[in-house]
């Protein structure tokens, strides 16, 4: 982002921060919703039963591990696509 004044730069960074916070929140609510949907199916009790609690823990753990791996592949992919311009331009 060249050619921006210092004030514009600050404004831009502040917006990016807001976006990141929003992203993080979206990830959180997605994770809650996904692990709930995958793990909870017993509605004869009103507290999580042991099986469900364990499943949620493994779900979060696996999601984080998978997400990290995907992030790495995604960054590599982005870099690669930057390097070779799209056809027809």
């Amino acid at each position: 982002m060249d050619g921006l004044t210092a004030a514009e730069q600050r404004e831009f960074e502040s917006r990016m921060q807001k976006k990141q916070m929003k992203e993080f929140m979206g990830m959180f609510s997605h994770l809650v919703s996904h692990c709930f949907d995958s793990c909870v199916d017993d509605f004869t009790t009103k507290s999580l039963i042991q099986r469900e609690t364990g499943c949620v823990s493994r779900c979060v753990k696996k999601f984080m591990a998978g997400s990290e791996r995907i992030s790495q592949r995604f960054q590599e992919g982005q870099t690669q696509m930057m390097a070779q311009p799209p056809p027809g331009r």
Partner: protein
Amino acid sequence: MFGGFGRPQPSSAEKIAAAEAEMDLVTDMFNKLQQACMKKCIPREYREGELNKGEGVCIDRCAAKFFDVQMKVSELLQQEAQAKGAGGGMGFGGM
């Protein structure tokens, strides 16, 4: 609410932004809870318009369990953040 930023005097604009962000998260969680519990508790045949007793009880328990999961996920993310040495960070339990 979203404490722990370690900054003593947030400006008005920052306060407004934080309040908005919080409201967005609350809204989002409500929508997710609603979708999750409608899916789990209400059959899609719609043979009747009333919420019958079984469905109502299911929703109550479903909501309670959804909050448990929310709390649990929040705890786990905090542990992860601490394990990585990220220190403070934000909690979601007290949203």
